[in-house]
């Protein structure tokens, strides 16, 4: 872990020059970077053991096969949403303390040195400082860990609404 602020700032400036992954495995890994909870992908409950076990158990309530399948899928779908909700709640996006606390204005000499070691180019330095300042504003707006987990969990409300509506509908129809 880098603790030197100067080194940390240099690493971040260099990272901005990156053109992304080149290898197939790197591209495959980075294609999953924006994956948050996986609730938008279509689930395949029918082939799972849990589903079959649930269907058999529910069938003993005297419901039709169709109703049992519907209820089991609804229940598993609801559990999937609540598990994702728990995961989101327990692992919010970490606070970038360096970015939050760095004094962007005082870092101008470092930007100048990193961008043009031979001589300063005020325009580039100003742009870099402005870019870091905007990233810092975004980081600070997100708040602390509790604010982050609240905002992240809030995004899953619609999945919960749909999940419970599906389950409830299946049970009442059955």
């Amino acid at each position, binding site marked *: 872990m880098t603790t030197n602020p100067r080194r940390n700032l240099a690493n971040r400036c260099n990272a901005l020059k990156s053109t992304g992954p080149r290898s197939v495995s790197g591209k495959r890994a980075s294609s999953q970077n924006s994956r948050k909870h996986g609730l938008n992908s279509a689930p395949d409950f029918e082939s799972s*053991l*849990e589903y*079959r*076990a*649930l269907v*058999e*158990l*529910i069938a*003993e*309530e*005297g419901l039709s096969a169709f109703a049992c399948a519907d*209820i089991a899928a609804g*229940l*598993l779908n*609801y*559990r999937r949403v*609540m*598990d994702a909700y*728990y995961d989101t*709640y*327990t692992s919010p996006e970490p606070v970038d303390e360096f970015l*939050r606390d760095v*004094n962007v204005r005082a870092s101008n000499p470092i930007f100048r040195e990193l961008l043009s070691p031979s001589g300063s180019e005020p325009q580039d330095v100003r742009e870099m400082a402005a870019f870091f300042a905007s990233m810092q504003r975004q980081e600070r707006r997100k*708040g*602390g*860990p*509790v*604010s982050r*987990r*609240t*905002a992240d*969990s*809030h995004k899953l*409300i619609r999945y*919960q*609404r749909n999940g*419970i*509506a599906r*389950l*409830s509908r299946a*049970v*009442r129809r*059955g």
Partner: protein
Amino acid sequence: MLYNVHFGIYVDVAMPVEDKSKSLLPFLSSPKLLPDESEAEFQSGLQSLLSELDNPSPLSGALVSQLNECLWWIKRHTVDKELLLHEAMARILSKGGIYTETYDNRKVSDALENYLDGSAGKDEAKWIDEILAESKLTLPDLRIRAFKDASRHIKMVDDLIHRQHQTIRHLQRSIDSIDYKSRLIKRMDLELAALESKQSVKGVLSLDDKSS
């Protein structure tokens, strides 16, 4: 036959019905708790809800366990509201005064927590008093400003709590419908049995008439 159902708990599908209602419960009720939460408290809540059902079927048991989880989430989110306020207060303090660049958010947060609990040491209390004075704030002012700052997130927590209430309503309706159906089936069974017994009595009587 054993199935590993969802949370790594095995359910024996070939066991009798009355045992299954018990065995399905761990599948959906095994809680995912935070490190500082008590499983015993969670389970006792679940048991008290289950005791309100006459003879819980596997499905109604499963729905009740989901309902218990909702109540647990409401508890968590209620605590979050206080935490959000605390977080905002610490943020305001760490930005305040002449110490802007030297104060660590986490340090201020810990000191403030002790200060509000009344468990702060002399140095900590003095430190917080100093920052408050530098920021020209009193504790109630700080709380009001923090509430204003955190209002967006507090509203989000309220939405999350409201969602859990709506979910509970859905689950209650589902449990009611299962209960109603099972009572209806029982009643129809009883009526059918009564009709059959009536018919068999009639059959016996008619046989007696013929023989006499």
